[in-house]
């Protein structure tokens, strides 16, 4: 993992001191609320429905047990004993008092953590593949580039007051586990034929009210040129991005308006200006960071055949099949710990659970933890010989839910229970759906299925890229849920298509049942997944089933009356 040096620690302390002084100047009236707000946001502090929310950065989703224990301490001491892991691999504390923020930031800084640039119109926390460094087939560990991006973007003087927020994701594998096509900038690293690393750069992807897939700016950029290139993109966006309407201020709209060819031309001009006039990329810094991310010493692990352990315990076997993935070292495995216990708010973890995860990471995973954008926790390097023992401890702690990638592994935004922007509840919908699958015991039969729920059009729950996407809206004071089908955030990225009119909260579960029934009746066999089946049969059979029932008719009438 990346090791903080004196520079990082000094920087963090200065930022805390700076923020304390800013809060004081706001209290003294030296700063107006309008002037203070961007400063507050750039330190991760939101004013939500009921309280302040502090969003703590977990850069590229990697942390160690000491850091996890400190998050538990903050949850216990300053929140209500839990935190919420987000789709940007961060952690949110939802019940924070303004007076406590400076103390919390100091506690975080003790373990090299912070809340810098987790909100506001700046470059946000960089995300990457949660299996980085552990999965086979990577060009290199994408966290090296992600850490370089963190350094480049942190406190960048030119990009602190952008038209709108800016999100970057990096992937280094053919399997895109970082949803790179739906970021303001998506970077896909690959091995160059000529040696070294090359970057494919996508721009203008995003979800929200105007979902767009990233468009290719360059198919192959030498890695040494990446930061001058990104500076060129940012400069063009900062100057030309719209500031007259916040809903049109993301770079995706600028790319729509310029066209990708014109955008590329402007960016190339800026890029060559920088390449000609400015010093080149500091390879020594990359080498230092790469060394920090070298794999732990695996020499004490030995080969282990899991078949015997699995034969002894059906529940362990089910856990391995669902929550354990192949590691690039055959003696190890990647374990996903589900934060989607049926009926619990997706992504929430209690202080006790955080401490258990920290202990398990120290005992079983070379002290490494990852947060996935699916709001689960990963133990990336577990020796196979210790998997059964790890499973037993997870089961004792109630953390062995074997549903990774299944219908109850739902992404949901905080929704109307917490968020000031939300138009409908999303957490209760996720809870009800998960409980329904659990009661019917049909998840295993349904197979891989991603359900994603957003409580408003801003799409924090990624509903556009859910195999089944659910969007909660407010129709004349009544919650109404639109459904999309066929979205996909992977390397086969695509946006979901709307089924038609939305459903009331009371009829939503039945609608999801109907969709699943159509799939189960139509699939060629268990090996044909929901998304594969949808691609084959298309929207028509789903639409027909959804809108030919009396419930759907009633909803349609209600929607008509409301609109």
């Amino acid at each position, binding site marked *: 993992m990346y*090791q903080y040096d004196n520079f990082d620690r000094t920087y963090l302390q200065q930022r805390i001191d700076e923020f304390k002084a800013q809060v004081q100047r706001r209290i003294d009236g030296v700063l107006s609320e309008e002037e203070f707000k961007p400063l507050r946001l750039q330190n991760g502090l939101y004013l939500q429905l009921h309280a302040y929310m502090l969003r703590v950065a977990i850069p590229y989703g990697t942390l160690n047990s000491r850091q996890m224990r400190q998050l538990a301490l903050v949850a216990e001491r300053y929140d209500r004993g839990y935190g919420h892991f987000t789709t940007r691999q961060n952690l949110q504390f939802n019940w924070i008092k303004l007076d406590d923020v400076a103390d919390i930031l100091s506690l975080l800084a003790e373990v090299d953590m912070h809340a810098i640039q987790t909100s506001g119109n700046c470059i946000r926390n960089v995300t990457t593949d949660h299996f980085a460094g552990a999965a086979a087939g990577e060009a290199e560990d994408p966290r090296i580039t992600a850490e370089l991006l963190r350094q480049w973007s942190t406190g960048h003087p030119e990009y602190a007051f952008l038209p709108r927020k800016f999100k970057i994701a990096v992937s280094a594998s053919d399997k895109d586990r970082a949803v790179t096509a739906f970021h303001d900038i998506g970077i896909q690293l690959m091995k160059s034929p000529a040696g070294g690393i090359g970057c494919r750069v996508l721009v203008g992807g995003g979800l929200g009210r105007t979902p767009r897939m990233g468009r290719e700016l360059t198919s192959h950029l030498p890695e040494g040129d990446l930061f001058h290139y990104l500076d060129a993109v940012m400069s063009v966006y900062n100057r030309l991005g719209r500031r007259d309407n916040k809903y049109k201020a993301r770079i995706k709209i600028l790319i729509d308006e310029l066209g990708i060819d014109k955008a590329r031309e402007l960016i190339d001009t800026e890029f060559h200006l920088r390449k000609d006039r400015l010093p080149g990329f*500091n390879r020594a810094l990359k080498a230092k960071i790469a060394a920090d991310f070298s794999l732990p010493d695996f020499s004490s692990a030995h080969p282990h055949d899991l078949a015997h352990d699995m034969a002894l315990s059906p529940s362990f076997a089910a856990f391995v099949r669902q929550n354990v993935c192949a590691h690039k070292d055959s003696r190890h495995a990647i374990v996903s710990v589900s934060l989607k216990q049926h009926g619990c708010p997706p992504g929430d973890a209690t202080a006790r659970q955080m401490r258990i995860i920290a202990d398990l990471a120290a005992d079983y995973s070379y002290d490494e933890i990852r947060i996935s954008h699916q709001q689960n926790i990963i133990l990336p390097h577990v020796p196979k010989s210790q998997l059964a023992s790890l499973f037993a401890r997870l089961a004792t702690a109630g953390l062995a839910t074997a549903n990774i990638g299944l219908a109850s592994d739902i992404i949901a935004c905080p929704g109307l229970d917490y968020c000031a922007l939300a138009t409908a509840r999303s957490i209760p919908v996720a809870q009800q759906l998960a409980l329904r699958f659990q009661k019917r015991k049909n998840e295993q039969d349904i197979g891989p299925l991603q359900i994603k729920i957003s409580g408003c059009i801003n799409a924090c729950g990624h509903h556009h890229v859910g195999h089944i996407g659910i969007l909660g809206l407010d129709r004349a004071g009544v919650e109404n849920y639109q459904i999309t089908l066929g979205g996909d955030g992977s390397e086969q990225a695509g946006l979901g298509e709307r089924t038609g009119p939305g459903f009331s909260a009371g009829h939503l579960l039945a609608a999801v049942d109907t969709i699943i029934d159509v799939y189960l009746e139509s699939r060629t066999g268990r090996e044909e997944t929901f998304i594969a089946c949808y691609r084959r049969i298309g929207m028509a059979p789903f639409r027909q089933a959804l809108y030919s029932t009396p419930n759907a008719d009633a909803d349609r009438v209600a929607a008509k009356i409301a609109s």
Partner: protein
Amino acid sequence: MVVITDTGFGADNWQGLAPVGPDDDSFTRLSNDELAAVVIRLDSDADMAPLVSRLAVIGKIVINFPASSDGRGFSLARQLRLYGYQGRLRASGALIPDQYRHARQCGFDEVAVNDGQARRQPLCHWTEQLPRLRPGYQARLFESQVLPPS
């Protein structure tokens, strides 16, 4: 109008110089000597193109910040420096002390605010920013810099 530099508050010594925009008719008619003396005024949505070929002879440029949340001027300043502008560069408008670092690191020499702003945010809040002018993370990314000792 108060002009803030690393040495503190000062009077506006550009007072009385009528600013000229690159889109003004008069801009194209100015001789090189005249260009060196006038103040070129850039709005935050300015197009740099007419300026680039004449940057070597221009002596004073002021970039307007319409709101403290509007960072376009930072990119304009950086672009001017990249194109080789070596004259005086001033940020003027709704900047707050917390943005002094951003302004200086993007290539501005000074920040100008109106008298009311200078009273609300007196000198001490600006000088507080001076320690933050040292190179940040960005300097580590490029070759000419040595790695800081860890």
